[in-house]
């Protein structure tokens, strides 16, 4: 644009869209790709690199200290300088480098261990120091990788190797988006992006990004356009206007009950992560809550033991729903969702390991605490309790007897409570195949895990996405079987996986007879719009399956 600087040529990089949308803004590279992609030097070179980065970080902090007049800020900075000067703090990183780690791996790993120690301290003062440690860790890492300080202006287009969920939550995404070099559609950050409607692509091609200042993120087609030329900018503007029209259409549907073009009512429920997202959502826009992921609320062992805290959280969700049904899932830890001291460490294959109800039944005291909190919350409205990762009928029977005992104890103690409906998540293929053997009051199909187990494709693997197509016949047939059984026997059935939020999949799910979908909050309007366009298939449930087979 300006006459003095040479114009950078437009560059297009492809990636996999994981959260649809369009965004345009200033490019911010959070981690230099060199962070993982650069050639590792000899241990001597890596050690020298870290030594330099530590020096630079100390100098940065000293500069900041010189500029600040606030005694508290100065003390915080002085603490960080002293820590960075301490060999006890830095030596483990250098030892790791000697054993073959890169400068950033060595530093990050040794800092993780120390941060954990502070974070787990009982003394509040020490726990607060963990934040200082993270600050130091990132400052040095930025120096190692040569990245600028990571203050992210609102609405930026962020390029990063990957984004930890906590980092994602710190960023003001208003109008911006993210392109990740790694990541997968099913990672937690992808789920968060979808839930909040932040455009995101993952598995993006890598290329040097120097010199690019502006970017257009096309998370519909999976493309990042750097230094867009006039044609790309015009196309963006046109499509953004079209998207705005579509959004207006979605907004219109959002406030209405979902009804198909053939006049059939479809229940559209909402998936909830930690309850904080409810503040911004009108309860009138959904027919209830189809999934509360309690493992996102209960992150530590203290939380697991805290009945009162759990009860208050569940009660608030019930109150928000105002009499509409709420399904809360018991702790689904394990797999990719560890809780320190609770989940089993070092499993070779955690997705096929001790997770969900398998883990809950190993810790009956933790499960009982949760069931007590849930039974108390059930006094505030129609609560359904869903058990995850059930494989055989006995697991469900076991949980039911614990729930009955819990309710009976609460009643004896004259604590207000109610018996919630008890149902299962259908995600293990064994359950889908033998659904008639389960004495459940409702079924909720967890399509994400069901797909991964049926297709033998890890959710983390971006490379297998073609095999994991939710519309391939094996998955649809299993869903069809479960829905058929439920419909015949008058049992409630819904689907709470990503399929329900994917408008490409919605007609296929309606085809197999499903009339209750639980979707990401950001997808409510879109899914209702898709339902409104749907006409009941004349040939019944097999139609779409035959087409895609």
């Amino acid at each position, binding site marked *: 644009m300006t006459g003095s600087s040479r114009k950078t040529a437009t560059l297009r990089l492809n990636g996999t869209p994981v959260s649809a949308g369009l965004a345009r803004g200033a490019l911010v590279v959070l981690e230099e790709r060199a962070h993982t992609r650069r050639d590792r030097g000899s241990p001597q070179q890596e050690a020298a690199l870290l030594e330099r980065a530590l020096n630079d970080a100390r100098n940065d902090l000293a500069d900041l200290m010189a500029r600040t007049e606030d005694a508290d800020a100065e003390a915080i900075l*002085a*603490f960080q300088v*002293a*820590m960075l000067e*301490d*060999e006890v*703090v830095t030596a483990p990183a250098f030892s790791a480098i000697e054993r073959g780690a890169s400068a950033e791996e060595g530093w990050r790993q040794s800092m993780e261990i120390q941060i954990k120690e502070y974070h787990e*301290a009982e*003394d509040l003062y020490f726990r607060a*120091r963990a934040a200082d440690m993270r600050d130091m860790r990132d400052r040095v890492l930025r120096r190692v990788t040569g990245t600028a300080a990571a203050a992210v202006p609102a609405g930026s287009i962020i390029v990063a190797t990957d984004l930890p969920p906590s980092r994602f939550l710190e960023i003001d995404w208003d109008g911006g988006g993210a392109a990740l070099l790694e990541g997968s559609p099913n990672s937690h950050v992808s789920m968060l992006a979808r839930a909040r409607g932040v455009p995101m692509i993952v598995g993006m091609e890598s290329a040097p990004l120097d010199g690019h200042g502006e970017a257009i993120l096309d998370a519909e087609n999976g493309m990042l356009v750097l230094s867009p030329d006039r044609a790309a900018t015009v196309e963006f503007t046109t499509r953004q206007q079209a998207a705005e029209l579509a959004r207006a259409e979605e907004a219109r549907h959002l406030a209405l009950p979902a009804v198909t073009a053939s006049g059939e009512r479809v229940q559209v429920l909402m998936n909830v992560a930690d309850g904080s997202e409810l503040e911004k959502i009108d309860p009138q826009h959904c027919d209830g809550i189809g999934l509360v992921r309690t493992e996102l609320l209960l992150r530590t062992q203290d939380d697991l033991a805290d009945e009162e805290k759990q009860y208050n959280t569940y009660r608030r969700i019930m109150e928000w729903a105002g009499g509409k049904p709420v399904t809360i899932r018991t702790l689904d830890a394990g797999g990719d969702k560890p809780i320190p001291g609770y989940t089993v460490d070092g499993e070779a294959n955690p997705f096929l390991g001790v997770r969900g109800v398998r883990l809950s039944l190993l810790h009956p005291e933790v499960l009982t605490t949760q069931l007590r909190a849930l039974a108390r919350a059930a006094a505030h409205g129609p609560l359904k309790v869903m058990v995850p990762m059930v494989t055989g009928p006995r697991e469900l029977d076991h949980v039911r007897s614990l729930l009955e005992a819990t309710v009976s104890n609460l009643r004896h103690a004259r604590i207000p409570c109610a018996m919630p409906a008890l149902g299962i998540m259908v995600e293990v293929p064994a359950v889908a195949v033998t659904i008639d053997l389960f004495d459940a009051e409702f079924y909720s199909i967890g399509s994400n895990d069901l797909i991964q187990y049926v297709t033998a494709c890890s959710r983390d693997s971006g490379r297998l996405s073609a095999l994991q197509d939710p519309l391939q016949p094996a998955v649809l047939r299993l869903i069809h079987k479960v829905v058929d059984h439920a419909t015949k026997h008058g049992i409630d059935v819904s689907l709470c996986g990503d399929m329900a939020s994917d408008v490409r999949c919605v007609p296929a799910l309606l085809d197999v007879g499903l009339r209750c979908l639980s979707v990401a909050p950001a997808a409510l309007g879109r899914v209702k719009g898709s339902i409104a366009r749907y006409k009941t298939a004349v040939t019944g449930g097999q139609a779409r399956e035959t087409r895609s087979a």
Partner: protein
Amino acid sequence: MNEDEALSREARSVWLAHPEGLHARPAIQLTKLAKQFQAHVWVGVSEDGPWTNAKSIARVLAMKTPTQTKLYFTAEGDDAPNAVDALVQLVRSDFKSVSDDGK
């Protein structure tokens, strides 16, 4: 308070009265001062140890020493007596003197 009775040639105790205990600010001063000496310098909360490297802010902080604790200092090396003197003086002055009286 008779806080600085000699325990051995180089180990002495002093009463820690700083209201924050041995938290960040005092710990920074303490380790900075300790580093000015050639001697190895240790700090502990009992005369039998365990002993903590008084030049490491991370280790000193990890002691989590609250206020109203008796601190013990010991050192080994050429300037050990001076080091112990200086550290005792720092704590006794409630961390107000990072003066050169330890030289």
